[in-house]
């Protein structure tokens, strides 16, 4: 191997953090290792522009053995840099900033929740399972922080100003509509308390948990005023905006990775071979499983190639048959899902009609919608899996189709439940119906409809948690004990539980969507959800380590984080639609709640608007007018065009550089051949 000439100039020695390292290799038959040459004569003053990082940071990222690095460092320290005072001040500043960053990072590591558990999970079960638990931790933190918002602006002022304040609007309205008696019974049997806890009725109904307890008061003092209904409304809106910002911020980091790596279809084999091995894998058993996993992935990819070749080799007649089969199966799956929706709406109607039953039967009727939703979410994906076997898509397409179907089922079933409730509350939108004529909502059945909706969401959340714990105790532990202790063919075929990431994540998204939908009507729901997710974390961790074996089919960890957040965004969208509809369309209950005598919940904003000062009103009018919004719209269009142009330019330059690399390789080969020819001639 001929030794390449040394490059001149010191600019190459201190790698700019944005460029990749350029190496000059020296061949050596004696030493086994080839190290990049280091220019000993350069001084730190020769750096151009990269001065903010300082020479010491660069030393860490140069791939030299430690003895050489030490020598370089000594040389650097002996050289007195001839820099101006401004430069040295800048250097000192950047060094202290680095130290501060490191110190804060160390301090924050102390506060990171569950980091040791997550490390253990990642080491034993891989990145896919770890991404589920990271997502769960994100949701716990989001719920806690958003609850602190609600507590600060709604709950605590309500508690403080409970008996003070006056109503901003006159308390008039039909007598019948203003009836609201949340505690009808006199003497209560003791187990009723437990039933009430589970269904949010009785002693729990008229409490800070639900919308109905909050007063429509406005506290005014000499230089302090607090409008509780307005605060309630704005807190709810801001809660949604805050959650959206958090999700998008988190998506930003995940998206950057996903976009930078381009299409994941290219380079599949090289990815698996060079990045498939997890160096953090601990233990003999985990290592063997990881090796089996890589083996399986390679086989799956080879299998996909084979299927693609087969599919390309089909005759026209077979293709038509396959496509018509796929269309038929698609409609069959759609039919199953619609049947599930019909079941949910019937169950909701039945449950609302029989809401006066007492005792255990009453509890079952109350929980009927939750039961039907959970059963549907369990049975329909199983059937769709069987359908997918007939459709014969490639393995990766099958996974994506199954996930899309499951997402559609879960989120739209929640939508169907809400739609059914709405129809009952507003008598199917028909204001001339006898029950809805007086108050524009069904005041006979729903004296305080917001509390009822809040109770439904509360029941859904509780039921979800109870089902998870019940499945853990009644299905997963016994399954493991049976499989471990009973050595029959059936037990071995069933095998130990596998931790399936996608369906668990969908469960989390569903739970969070329920909370978002119910937050307007049940302000403490985010706190309950945070506690529920904490309990869920420990339950899932226990079941992971005791009952599960690592999955043979893995879930890609980095693209999957982005996918989870996209699905969460769908749930957020559904909840926002619900919130906007209830704010703007339905008349609030007259017997309870902070929006008692307003025609819609949103109408408190125009009412309070008039009490603002003149200049503020003029400013807000100006922002809403066309003179402001049209230039703003035009400006945002221009900015968006700029970013799109920038992105396309980057993409084109990447393609150009790739082509250039190919050409350079060919040039190298040509030159080497020329050198050989010339050396032969000489």
């Amino acid at each position, binding site marked *: 191997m001929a030794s390449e000439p040394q490059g001149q100039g010191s600019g190459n020695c201190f790698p700019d953090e944005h460029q*990749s*390292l350029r190496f000059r*290799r020296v061949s050596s038959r004696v*030493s*086994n*290792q080839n190290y990049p040459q280091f220019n000993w004569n350069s001084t730190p003053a020769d750096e151009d522009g990269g001065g903010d990082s300082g020479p*010491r940071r660069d*030393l*860490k*990222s140069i*791939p030299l*053995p*430690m*003895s050489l690095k*030490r020598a370089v*460092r000594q040389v650097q320290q002996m050289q007195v840099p001839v820099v101006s005072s401004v430069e040295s001040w800048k250097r000192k500043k950047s060094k202290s900033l680095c130290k501060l960053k*490191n110190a804060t990072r*160390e301090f924050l590591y102390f506060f990171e929740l569950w980091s040791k558990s997550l*490390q253990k999970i990642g*080491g034993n079960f891989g*990145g896919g399972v770890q991404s589920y638990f990271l997502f769960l931790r994100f949701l716990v933190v989001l719920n806690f922080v958003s609850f602190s918002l609600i507590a600060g602006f709604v709950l605590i002022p309500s508690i403080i100003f409970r008996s003070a304040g006056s109503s901003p609007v006159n308390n008039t309205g039909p007598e019948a509509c203003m009836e609201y008696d949340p505690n009808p019974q006199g003497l209560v049997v003791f187990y009723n308390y437990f039933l009430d806890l589970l269904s949010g009725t009785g002693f729990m109904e008229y409490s800070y948990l639900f919308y109905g307890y909050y007063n429509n008061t406005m506290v005014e003092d000499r230089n302090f005023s607090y409008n509780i209904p307005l605060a309630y409304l704005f807190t709810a809106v801001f809660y949604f905006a805050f959650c959206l910002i958090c999700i998008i911020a988190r998506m930003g980091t995940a998206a950057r*990775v*996903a976009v*930078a*790596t381009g299409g994941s279809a*290219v*380079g599949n*084999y*090289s*990815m698996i*071979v*060079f*990045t*498939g*091995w*997890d*160096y*953090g*894998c*601990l*233990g*003999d058993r985990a*290592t*063997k499983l990881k*090796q*089996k996993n*890589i*083996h399986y992935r*390679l086989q799956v990819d*080879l299998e996909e190639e084979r299927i693609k070749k087969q599919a390309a080799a089909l005759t026209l007649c077979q293709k038509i048959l396959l496509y018509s089969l796929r269309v038929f199966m698609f409609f069959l799956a759609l039919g199953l899902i619609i049947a599930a929706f019909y079941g949910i709406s019937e169950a909701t109607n039945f449950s609302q009609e029989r809401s006066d039953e007492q005792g255990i039967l009453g509890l079952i009727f109350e929980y009927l919608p939750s039961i039907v939703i959970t059963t549907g979410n369990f049975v329909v994906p199983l059937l769709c899996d069987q359908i997918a076997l007939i459709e014969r898509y490639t393995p990766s397409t099958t996974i994506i189709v199954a996930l899309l179907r499951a997402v559609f089922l879960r989120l739209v079933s929640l939508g169907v439940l809400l739609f059914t409730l709405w129809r009952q509350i507003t008598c199917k939108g028909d204001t001339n119906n006898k029950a809805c004529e007086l108050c524009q909502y069904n005041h006979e059945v729903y004296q305080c409809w917001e509390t009822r909706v809040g109770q439904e969401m509360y029941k859904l959340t509780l039921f979800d948690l109870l089902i998870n714990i019940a499945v853990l105790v009644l299905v997963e532990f016994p399954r493991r004990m049976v499989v471990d202790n009973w050595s029959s063919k059936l037990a071995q075929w069933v095998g130990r539980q596998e931790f399936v990431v996608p369906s668990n994540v969908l469960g989390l998204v569903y739970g969070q969507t329920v909370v978002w939908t119910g937050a307007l009507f049940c302000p403490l729901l985010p706190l309950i959800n945070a506690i529920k997710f904490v309990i869920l974390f420990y339950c899932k961790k226990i079941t992971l380590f005791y009952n599960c074996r690592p999955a043979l089919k893995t879930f890609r960890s*980095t*693209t999957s984080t982005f996918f989870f957040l996209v699905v969460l965004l769908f749930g957020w969208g559904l909840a926002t639609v619900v919130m906007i509809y209830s704010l703007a369309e339905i008349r609030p209950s007259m017997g309870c709640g902070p929006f008692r005598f307003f025609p819609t919940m949103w109408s408190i904003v125009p009412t309070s608007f008039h009490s603002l000062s003149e200049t503020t009103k003029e400013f807000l009018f100006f922002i809403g007018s066309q003179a402001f919004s049209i230039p703003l719209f035009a400006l945002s269009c221009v900015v968006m065009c700029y970013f799109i142009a920038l992105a396309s330019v980057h993409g084109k330059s990447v393609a150009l550089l*790739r082509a250039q*690399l*190919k050409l*350079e*390789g*060919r040039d*190298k*080969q040509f030159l080497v051949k020329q050198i050989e020819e010339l050396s032969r001639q000489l």
Partner: protein
Amino acid sequence: MYIPMFFARFTPTTICLYLQDCTYFTRKEILRLFYRYRDLAPQLVPLDYTNHPDVKLPYELIGSMPELKDNPFRQRIAEVFSEDGEGNMTLDDFLDMFSVLSEMAPRDLKAYYAFKIYDFNNDDFICKSDLEKTLNKLTRNELTEDEVRMVCEKVIDEADLDNDGRLSLEDFQHMIVRAPDFLSTFHIRI
């Protein structure tokens, strides 16, 4: 075996400073790693490192660490990071190894060392025989001959940009840039 910190004559000013500049570890982590290194062979490793004693631990001890003992590439890792190329590591090599494998090391640095690890014959190129050895270590020799051949062909097809039938460092780095998982998998937690 826990040694109280003030017994270690590990002069903080000289030793830790150069190590903090040359690795991605903080002072606390460097001391903790020193104790891990010493625990492998307490008789060989002195507590006092002020005079840079020339102590090398043989590969068998390094390869028996719990973080490395099940890794199929542990021998290559030790060979790449050791000064003599045989796997016998000084404290400097030990710290260098875990610094590169920590989560703070940048992608380019990790890619350089990953390339060296997978280059079994040390010729600065990953050729077909290197790939075959890598594959066999990854799958415990469970792939058939045909499958190994097919996968090697596909890998070289995908990653070889200058069309010389083997992967150079640039090809490898170019492919790593497009791999989202690389930073999280080429990482040993210690």
